[in-house]
């Protein structure tokens, strides 16, 4: 079997690499032994797809144990979509508006009110997670027009997510440094997919912010403008859009509120 860039001259180094590769394969095998998909997973996927719940209404096929606080509401046309982040899953439920979202808010993401979004935005999907090292929780919501939503429904998953705007809120994470964030952002994309990357310091609501542009090689992502800033009290907000003006306008419309109380874990579903 061919080995990657195996040294040809020093025998000891070559042997060390070969041993490491063998050990790595064994580690994968050992770890994989414990990972199994429940037999009914395929049926569960078909059922969910036929219900039309799609990526918005999914539940996990394996129980998890996170109980955290996160909520998003899209306040439009008299209704809000509030995903319950319970056991690490996203379960969207349509409720009447007028809950915790301020009247002027277009959306609420993890207790952060978004006062302005481009016209006709709907929630395409939401996701959430937590940081192990610093105990942070975060939630990302993707928004798009109905046209974008239609494209997203039939998009090839191999091409990545389709959306017009994303809003991410993290609470309780490490202090935010716009310049340091460059390394994190660029490092995560250091894969040959990135054509161009620019950034500059700015302010949002008087707080230091970073404005980043990432020009992706692969469609349908294209160029993304990202504005990230923190309020100094452990809340980090990032907004993404296809143009700078939109990202900045959304960012400037944000009002940071308290984290919503989360429901208890729903347990296995």
């Amino acid at each position, binding site marked *: 079997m061919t080995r*990657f860039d195996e040294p040809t001259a020093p025998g000891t180094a070559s042997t060390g690499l070969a*041993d490491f590769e063998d*050990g790595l394969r064994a580690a994968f095998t050992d770890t994989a032994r414990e*990972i199994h998909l429940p037999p009914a997973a395929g049926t569960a*996927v078909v059922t969910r797809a036929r219900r039309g719940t799609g990526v918005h209404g999914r539940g996990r096929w394996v129980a998890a144990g*996170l109980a955290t606080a996160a909520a998003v509401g899209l306040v439009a046309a008299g209704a809000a979509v509030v995903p319950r982040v319970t056991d690490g899953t996203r379960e969207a439920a349509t409720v009447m508006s007028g809950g915790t979202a301020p009247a002027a808010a277009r959306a609420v993401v993890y207790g952060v009110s978004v006062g302005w979004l481009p016209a006709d935005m709907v929630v395409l999907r939401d996701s959430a997670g937590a*940081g192990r090292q610093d105990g942070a929780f975060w939630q*990302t919501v993707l928004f798009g027009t109905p046209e974008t939503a239609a494209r997203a429904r039939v998009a090839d998953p191999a091409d990545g997510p389709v959306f017009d705007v994303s809003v991410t809120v*993290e609470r309780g994470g490490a202090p935010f440094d716009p310049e340091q964030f460059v390394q994190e952002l660029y490092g995560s994309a250091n894969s040959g997919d990135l054509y161009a990357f620019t950034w500059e310091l700015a302010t949002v609501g008087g707080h230091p912010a970073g404005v980043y542009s990432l020009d992706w090689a692969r469609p349908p992502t294209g160029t993304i403008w990202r504005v990230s800033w923190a309020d100094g009290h452990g809340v980090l907000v990032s907004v993404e859009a296809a143009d700078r003006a939109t990202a900045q306008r959304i960012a400037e419309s944000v009002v940071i509120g308290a984290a919503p109380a989360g429901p208890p874990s729903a347990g296995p579903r």
Partner: protein
Amino acid sequence: MPDSGARARRDDRSFEGFVADRGSALLRTAVFLTGDRQGGEDLLQDVLLRAYRRWADVDDPESYLRRALVNASVSRARRWPRGREQLVAWDEPGPDLAVSPGGLVDVAGRVGDRHDLLGALRQLPPRQRAVIVLRYFDDLSEAEIATELGCGAGTVKTHAARGLSRLRELMGPLAGSPAALSATSPTRKGMPT
């Protein structure tokens, strides 16, 4: 496999059959691509839901889904890079993920804890991680990986070399007793799905 030989009929039953047959293998790939058990489950579920809608048009389901998993995992890392190295294995608290050289090999020379491998994988940039997973878990050739990732073989070599180097830094010597490891670990082909 449902998709072997002539093009198989693509209906709900074939989808369910494919997932029953290959789902665990895909889940393992997904978990390694994300470096996180729950993240992998989430990723696979997302990709399966989307793939179901296109099921009738998919010629090679396994390759298609693997490619979708790779690209979706990279896309997720783009969305929220701060989460790249910090995802939690919700269902099992496990040890702290700080990986110290040599810390992944127990006294018998075996890799002791799956969290350690996952923790080390999380330290790699997503594309690099994907190459390592496809090469050393899925046993794909350089050419196959290049095809899956839509890049050149040279890029695959570079990612693999850098990824291996980084993993060696993080994991220390995994050798211990490679022969013994091989003897006690099932091969990929022999692994139940």
